[in-house]
Every structure is written in C-alpha cells, then in structure tokens.
C-alpha cells in the first residue's frame, strides 16, 4: 500500500501578513521531509473562498514549488475543478503538462467538480451542469495532451484547431483520477478507467461496497485516456506518537476542529434545488466520531504506531491501493510535532506495508500505474 499527504492548506484566523506564508512554508517543509521518508504522493486541492478551511486555490503553483524541492515523490492535483467558469480545459491541459515537465514526469491529475455553493456560486457556475462539464473535460484532456493538433466542438465548450503546448513529459500522459465523494462517482471513475481518489472518511465497511463495484466495472471500462489507471485511494488523518493516548488526543484535536470548519460552507443542495447531491461523506463519519469524545475513531490513523498499523491493515485488506493523510487543520498541531509524527510513521508503520522500502525511483514509479509502466512510464 502507498501513502500520500493531502493538502488543503488550512490557515487559522486572525490572518496577518505572515500567516499564509508561514503555513505554506510549513507545508513545503513537510513535503521535503515526506519525499525523503519515502511517502509516495503529495496531493493539493483546488478550493476557492473556503476561509480558514483551505487557502489552496492555485494548487499548480504549490505543486511546482514541491517539484523544485523533491526528487521522487509524485505530485497530484487533488483535484483540478473541471468547470469552465473556473478554468478552460485548454488551460488545464497546458498547466498540467508544464508541471509534468518541471517535475520530471511525476504528475498525477485528479479531476472533479465542486460540491459547494460557496465555490460554484462564487464563479456563477450552475451545479447541475458540473457533471456534464467534468465528463467532457476528462474525455478531452488526454487528447489535448497527446494529439499534435486538436479541435473540439462539444456541448459545454469548444475550440478551433490549435496546437496545445507543451506536451506532458510522461508518455503517453499522466495518470488520471477523479475525486469520489458523491455516491455513484466510483462508477463514473470505473467506467472511464480513472483512478478513484476517495475524499470521504467512511468506515472500512462503508467503503468496501464502493470498492467492489469499482473493481468490477473497471474490468470492462472504456478508458478516456490511453491507459487504465486502476487505483483506489482513500483519505485519512495522521498523527503518530510513541504514546497511544497522546497520539489519539492530538489526532482528535485535528479531527474535532474539522467538523465546525467544514460545515460552515454551503453545499449545493442547501442553496438551490439540484440533482448535484453532495455526499455527507467525511462529515457524516466525523459527526459519528464526535459522539465519542476522546475515543480513537475506527479506521482513522491516529495513535501509536501499533494502533495505526492495525487500522491501516484493515484498509489494505480491503484492497485500497493508497491512503492519503491530512496532517493538520488550523495549525492546531505544532510543526515540530507534525514532522516527528511523519518520521515515526515512516520508521515504525511504513515497513509493515512495504517489502522493498528501499526500492529505486524507477521501481516506485513503475508500480504507480500498471498501464503507464506498461506503456513506458517516464
């Protein structure tokens, strides 16, 4: 099983001139360490207007900075919003290709749409259209990356023939994923041969059915790209400490702050009558956890190495390929503790999930995607 870090980049009030810079600097310090420790992925969200919760509206810039200070860790848009009011698909193709070049072919491209009126309303985008625009974008992107000249006449966007430049460094192109939060999106992912980038904190049992459905459907998929990216990632929190009670208590400070923060925003069905249903997802699970103050929530990677290993083994047994961790919210955990947690996790937990921790960069990349490796990888 692989491990990644997911960045929302949460910045607490009061905001000073330095506060956002401080948080970004800390994130980059974590990324540099994670690369050295053998973590596999960095994912950066694209969120807009979500004050305190996420100040990561330009993930490509953050990921470029990550690329400059790391050697082997893979860098993921987690996700790029496929809504024309946010970005033209041309710009998405250009930006992702550029980052793939700058990172030496380490890019993963998560796609999706937004679940909140706070964001979509801010761009005056219609939530009922976002499934359609996402679908068109993901069908177009691989062609824009791989065809020398490209033209398109579609439903939600179009362009005359042009040469979209640059082209990605990875051949045929970077792996594609889709954020899976709303029920049924795992089917969308499987039918299109996309990786399933889980962004909900459901229990092992809750996610098992989704996973089975994904694995079954993807066998007969029609991939939108030149290869199938059959990988399933899930999201989790991480705080690892030698003392289990202290690990759980500190980890709970993060999970407990997440609830009021995330629920401030207006999800689509609350704002307008829409079929664009937002999954309760992470919030539902965290609310249940909140009913048991101080307890270590099942499936969540907080505590000592033994407990975290035990919980992650459940995900591994279920067939999850990758777990991506949120390390902090509102900076409630001091940076040194976050870094110590990463070190302890890498030393005590990671070996239980890897036979060859010292695997070479090429081997690590090879296993990222069975098809990209087969196609020549980087």
């Amino acid at each position, binding site marked *: 099983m692989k491990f990644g870090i997911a960045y929302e980049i949460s910045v*607490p009030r009061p905001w000073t001139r330095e506060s956002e810079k401080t948080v970004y600097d800390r994130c980059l310090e974590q990324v540099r360490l994670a690369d050295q420790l053998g973590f596999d992925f960095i994912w950066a969200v694209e969120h807009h207007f979500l004050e305190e919760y996420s100040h990561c509206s330009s993930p490509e810039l953050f990921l470029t900075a990550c690329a400059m200070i790391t050697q082997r860790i893979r860098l993921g848009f987690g996700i790029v919003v496929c809504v024309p009011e946010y970005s033209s698909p041309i710009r998405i193709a250009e930006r992702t290709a550029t980052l793939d070049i700058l990172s030496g072919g380490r890019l993963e491209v998560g796609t999706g749409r937004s679940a909140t009126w706070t964001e979509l*309303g801010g761009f005056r985008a219609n939530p009922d259209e976002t499934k359609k625009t996402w679908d068109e974008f993901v069908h177009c992107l691989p062609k824009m990356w791989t065809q020398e000249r490209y033209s398109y006449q579609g439903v939600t966007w179009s362009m005359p023939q042009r040469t979209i430049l640059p082209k990605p460094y990875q051949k045929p192109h970077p792996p594609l994923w889709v954020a899976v939060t709303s029920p049924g999106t795992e089917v969308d992912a499987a039918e299109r041969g996309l990786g399933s980038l889980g962004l909900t904190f459901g229990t092992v049992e809750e996610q098992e059915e989704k996973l089975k459905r994904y694995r079954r459907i993807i066998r007969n998929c029609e991939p939108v790209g030149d290869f199938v990216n059959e990988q399933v990632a899930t999201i989790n929190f991480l705080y690892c400490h030698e003392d289990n009670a202290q690990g759980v208590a500190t980890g709970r400070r993060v999970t407990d702050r997440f609830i*009021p923060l995330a629920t*401030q925003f*207006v999800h689509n069905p609350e704002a*307008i009558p829409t079929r664009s249903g937002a999954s309760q997802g992470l*919030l539902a699970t965290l609310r249940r956890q909140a009913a048991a103050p101080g307890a270590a929530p099942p499936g969540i990677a907080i505590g000592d190495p033994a407990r975290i290993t035990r919980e992650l083994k459940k995900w591994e047994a279920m067939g999850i390929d990758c777990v991506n961790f949120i390390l902090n919210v509102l900076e409630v955990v001091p940076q040194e503790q976050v870094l110590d947690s990463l070190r302890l996790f890498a030393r005590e937990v990671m070996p239980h999930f890897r036979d060859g921790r010292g695997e070479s960069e090429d081997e690590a990349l090879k296993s990222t995607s069975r098809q990209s490796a087969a196609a020549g990888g980087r």
Partner: protein
Amino acid sequence: MPPRYGKLDVSDWGKSAPTINGYRTEPWKLNGARLLEFRYEVDDGPADALLPPALHPAMPAYATFTVMDSPDSPIGRFMLGEVRIVGRAGGRPAAFVAASFCDSEVASRELSARWGYPVKPADVKLTAQHFVIAARVSTNGHPMLELELRNRRPLPAVHLQPLPSMNLARNSENGNLVLVQVDIDAVFAQSDGGSERVIKLDRDAFRGAENLRLMSPMSATFAVAELTLARIQLICDPESPAESGTIYLD
C-alpha cells in the same frame, strides 16, 4: 481561534421574545400547504449580528424569505410570512427566525406558545398563477415584503431541502431565553423553481435594519406539500455554542 459565531445581542433581542409553554406540544399537520421560498445571499459580515452566539454563520451568509398559505391546519386556515438568517447549529444548517407575520390571531397565539414563533399580525397573501407566483406581507397597506417567482418550471421534489427553524423564546417555567429548533417534515405534492425577484423588503420590519443587505440571489422555489411541524426535540442556550449548549428532549 474558534469558528465565527453569531453576535446577536440576545438579551436585547429577546425583550420581545414570545413565551413558550413547555416543550411538549403535539405535532401539527398542515395539509395542502403552499410555500414560496427564496434563498438569497446577504452581506456576510453584518449578518453575524443577526445570529445568536449559539450559531455560527454559513459561508456565504444567506437568508430565506418564506410565505406560506396553510389552508388546513388544526386551527383552520392561516398565512405566515417570515425572514430567517441561516446559520449552523454545530454542523447542521439551522435558520434563525428574525421575524414572522401571520394573518390569524389564533394561529399566531398557538405558533408562539407551542413553537416560539415571534409572530406579529399582518396581511399575508400568496397568489400562484402559471407564469408568476407572487407573495406580499403588509400592515395597514404598507408592504413589508413582496416576492415574485417568474419563469416557473417543474422541479423534482427530491431536490428540495427544507431547513429547520430556530426560534428565540422565553421559557414560561423559568423565564430564561432559549432557542427552540422547529423541524418541518414535508411530503411534497408539487414543486417548481424559477427566477426570483425581491420587490420589497422592509428590513426594519424584519428586524434586520442595516445588517440585512441583499447581495446575490440563490434560488426560488414554490411547493405544495403536507407539512408537519414536528414535536420539539432540540433546544439550546442562545448564548453558548450549539455544539455544547444543546439539550435533547426525551
């Protein structure tokens, strides 16, 4: 830092709060109710002053404007118009009732005593035509709220999401101010959407004053439904965060 919370001066606002007679009221069924509701973004910072400290604001801040015709209730026909500021009780959406107006003296009395509605008398009208649905709340001919839904189109009822109300009331037993959550169950028979137009909003009449500034429309819906004003299950201290100050009634 904690998340933002409402900044309403509860003791001042509560001087005119209705008195609620215990929390044991039976549910009311409102058959064939017609409901026009607008959701509208309002100026984000000032709206905090319209939410009690128990609630934290939605982002973006928004209000609901609702006019209901209830032709068949346990006390007969009544019409209700209200403005609510939507916040969060813990993690859940909850709409604080800034002010409500009712055309029936009996209904006003009962809604106040049973669920803590801050009701005042007014003329309330709701007319639903094929092309336009119009609502008006007025006193002595002075309009306080005028709404129009145009470009009416059918909507699947499953897409409607009613929001529970929070009424600030005074408990008759101890005289304390309390926030009463009013859950409304709805079985929709018909639902439509359309474009919204707020023709008139007397902000002072709805106690919004300079803090209730309309910014950007969100949605307009019209529904015919069987509504149930549910038995009170949740109350909370208006001055404490709802996540810690909520009491679940048996």
